[in-house]
């Protein structure tokens, strides 16, 4: 799941051609790849990574790049690897969850390398500490070690540009892919960036290396890979990106990577401890520069590790010190509880840890001001729940699904998936989804649950996924379900875009990443070919959708697919700039808060209430004019009129 960034304009260049521009970290990463001569780029959308491929797609024609939104991260990585094997420069990007999808392949790729044609491949993974827009806050740094791949983690946008360039160089030199870890506070931060010179890599694609792996070959390949990582280590031990700043005899050294570096600098600055605390910035995440650690850390007796999310550096610092009789140096961090073991790193978290370790008195704010907050602000701060946009087809779909389940009366069990429809679980949704995991997992879970009737499981099962999710990872699970005689209804909410991450295309629509016409793969045909029964409906027709849904539940055998097709409202608005209906509430008929059906049940954000009169009304600045609410009002008090121009 993710937060979209609709309506954000790309920064305009300043008048001078080479002037620094204010751009997103992700835009800087894409720009650096172009400057490094990238030829091929692929990815699957996921916050906070999506703008990398989007930026490259926007430049594809100008720089003769092949850029694609792939069906999933594994396919994206495979495509990028093929380009590298053929001697080209490639980049693949994904969010943290996506790396797990691609990892089976990437681990293999580390063992073979990318061959001798002089190609290079950079894997950019964007983590989401704090899980702002994710179902988890996993730390990808472990996975570089796990998959025998070198990894770099920049601490600023400017550094990210140079790191991407270095990663391409290293990849070419060592003939293996190199990983770069980004994170929300880099990818979705903006800073001034100067454009560099654009290199063109004009390799002619060819294939001649033998890069196969079989059980017999894997063992020696593992050995060669480890030997290669040992050479990487010698580079990393001497890299100027790993740098110490601060006094020669500090009381405390903060070891930090990524966002931790800036947070540590802020903390030291705020506390005025520049003369007492040193900072060791680590950019080379794996292989870990152990000798550097042993050279720098003995300057102090105490070390604080500032990183996000897991204690990755902390574990490796401890291991290094333990090996070299460095036990007299005390290491603090997430493992010791000096920084909370989950969540983003922030300047104040580092401040608190420093104060605790050095036993200095420090208050983030005066107790008087905090007391004012506690008495005057805290009691007023109610939460702001999430909800689907006005006019969102998902609200209509879930409305119909809920009605059908009620009419069916057998307490159907709903399994969800990853997309805007996930908002169902929040108070602004219908609360129908009971089981929700990774991309495409809904169909797999339903496939298993749908086979339990012989054990006495009696509830009908509904699995709900989106269009992009269907292509990403639901298809193999559906095939599995049909083949293994599972029983459930698969609902595909087809809003004709990967909406939550910014309307990226997918195989189900007739455009590709760079906006050119592309063959559309019809999901109804695919599902039919799998052997499922398929029905297509319009979710805005609540009555008909409810009827179909109920019918499908009654069939109670095999895999029934219901495709609810309606374009994402934000996308529709962008394309047409038209509001179909003018919708209003007739105060004569409306029974107000006494009824409250529209506010409590339908929960469209365009509904508002005059708190003085308890009278619901529709906000003209919010209403998209879909007219669906006209169908739900028990008093028939909601009226729609003819089309108006936006």
């Amino acid at each position, binding site marked *: 799941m993710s937060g979209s960034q609709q309506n954000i304009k790309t920064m305009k260049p300043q008048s001078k051609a080479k002037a620094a521009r204010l751009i997103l970290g992700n835009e800087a990463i894409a720009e650096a790849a172009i400057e490094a001569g990238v030829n091929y780029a692929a990815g699957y959308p996921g916050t906070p990574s999506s703008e990398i491929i989007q930026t490259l797609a926007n430049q594809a024609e100008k720089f003769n790049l092949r850029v694609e939104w792939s069906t999933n991260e594994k396919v994206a990585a495979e495509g990028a690897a093929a380009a590298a094997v053929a001697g080209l420069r490639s980049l693949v990007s994904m969010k943290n969850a996506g790396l797990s999808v691609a990892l089976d392949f990437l681990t293999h790729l580390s063992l073979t390398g990318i061959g001798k044609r002089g190609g290079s491949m950079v894997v950019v993974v964007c983590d989401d500490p704090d899980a702002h*827009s994710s179902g988890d806050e996993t730390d990808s740094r472990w996975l570089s070690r796990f998959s025998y791949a070198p990894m770099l983690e920049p601490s600023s946008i400017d550094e990210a540009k140079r790191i991407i360039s270095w990663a391409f160089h290293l990849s070419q030199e060592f003939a293996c892919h190199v990983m770069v870890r980004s994170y929300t506070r880099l990818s979705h931060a*903006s800073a001034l960036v100067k454009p560099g010179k654009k290199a063109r890599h004009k390799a002619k694609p060819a294939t001649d290396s033998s890069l196969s792996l079989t059980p017999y070959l894997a063992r020696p390949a593992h050995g060669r890979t480890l030997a290669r990582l040992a050479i990487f280590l010698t580079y990393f031990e001497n890299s100027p990106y790993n740098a110490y700043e601060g006094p020669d005899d500090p009381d405390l050294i903060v070891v930090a990577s990524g966002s931790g570096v800036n947070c540590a600098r802020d903390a030291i600055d705020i506390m005025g401890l520049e003369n007492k605390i040193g900072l060791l910035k680590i950019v080379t995440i794996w292989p870990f520069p152990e000798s550097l650690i042993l050279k720098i850390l003995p300057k102090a007796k105490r070390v604080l590790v500032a990183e996000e999310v897991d204690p990755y550096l902390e574990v490796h610092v401890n291991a290094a010190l333990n090996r070299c009789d460095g036990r007299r140096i005390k290491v603090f961090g997430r493992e010791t509880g000096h920084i909370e073991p989950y969540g983003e790193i922030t300047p104040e978290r580092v401040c608190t840890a420093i104060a605790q370790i050095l036993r200095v008195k420090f208050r983030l704010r005066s107790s008087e001001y905090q007391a004012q907050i506690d008495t005057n602000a805290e009691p*007023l701060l*109610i939460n*702001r729940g999430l909800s*689907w946009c006005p006019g969102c087809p998902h609200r209509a779909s879930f409305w119909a699904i809920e009605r059908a389940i009620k009419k069916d009366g057998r307490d159907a069990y709903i399994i969800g998936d990853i997309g805007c429809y996930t908002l169902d679980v929040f108070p602004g949704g219908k609360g129908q989804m009971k089981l929700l995991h990774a991309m495409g997992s809904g169909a797999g879970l339903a496939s298993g649950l749908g086979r339990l009737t012989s054990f006495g499981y009696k509830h009908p099962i509904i699995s709900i996924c989106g269009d992009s999710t269907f292509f990403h990872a639901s298809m193999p699970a559906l095939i599995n379900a049909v083949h293994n005689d599972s029983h459930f209804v698969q609902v595909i909410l087809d809003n004709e875009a990967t909406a939550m991450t910014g309307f990226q295309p997918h195989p189900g629509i007739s455009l590709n990443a760079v906006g050119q016409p592309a063959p559309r793969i019809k999901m109804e045909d695919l599902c039919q070919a799998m052997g499922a029964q398929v029905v297509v409906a319009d979710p805005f027709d609540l009555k008909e959708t409810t009827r179909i849904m109920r019918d499908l539940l009654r069939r109670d055998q095999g895999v029934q697919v219901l495709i609810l097709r309606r374009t994402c409202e934000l996308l529709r608005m962008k394309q047409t700039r038209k509001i179909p209906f003018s919708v209003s509430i007739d105060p004569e008929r409306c029974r107000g808060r006494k009824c409250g059906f529209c506010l409590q049940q339908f*929960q469209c954000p365009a*509904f508002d209430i005059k708190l003085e009169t308890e009278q619901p009304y529709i906000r003209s600045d919010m209403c998209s004019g879909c007219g669906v609410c006209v169908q739900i009002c028990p008093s028939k008090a909601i009226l729609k009129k003819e089309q108006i121009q936006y």
Partner: protein
Amino acid sequence: MNRHDPHNIVVSGVGGQGNILIARLLGRLFAIKGYQVSIAETFGAAQRGGSVFSSLRISKKKTGGPLIPFGRADIIIGIEPLETLRMLKYFGNPNVSTFTNDKPVYPIGVLRGNDRYPSTGKLKAALKTLSKNLLIIPATEAALECGGAIMANIVMLGALAGSELLLLPKEDIIAEVKESVPADKVSMNLKAFEMGFELSQRSSVKHLCPS
């Protein structure tokens, strides 16, 4: 004159109100003036209606991280009053200058009747207690007069400009507004900006000076 370095500005609102546009616009303005600029956007899963804020840090000395530390905002601009208060909880301090729209966007829980939106009086009192300088203006109302509630963010920018707290020439800000909005919406946005500017100039906040 001195301002804190880095100088920290929070722009907050709910999803769809255009706070990121304001943060980036200010960022470009300060960049032209030779400042280093760093912006963080925090929007989570908010498509529409969720809490969204941007933090903007400017410095003459260095490119720092984009995260404003707890309690360290110099200016808070809010396009929704409850969200402004939420920002004060995290970033507020006795020296902060706060600019906010007065028009609530009710959370889902309030519309459902489960939660109570704070009364105008209590909300204003809390904002006032927690700010050194406070300007509350009817930005949505003004924006509607100009042609659309969506321009409340530009009204708020005008209000900030009118306070003279930014220490940036008005015409520079106007030039950047022109660059930042669709060509066919320039005149209505400039009107919105001017309305915010006027509202601010008429208030006592125009006399405030950076401490």
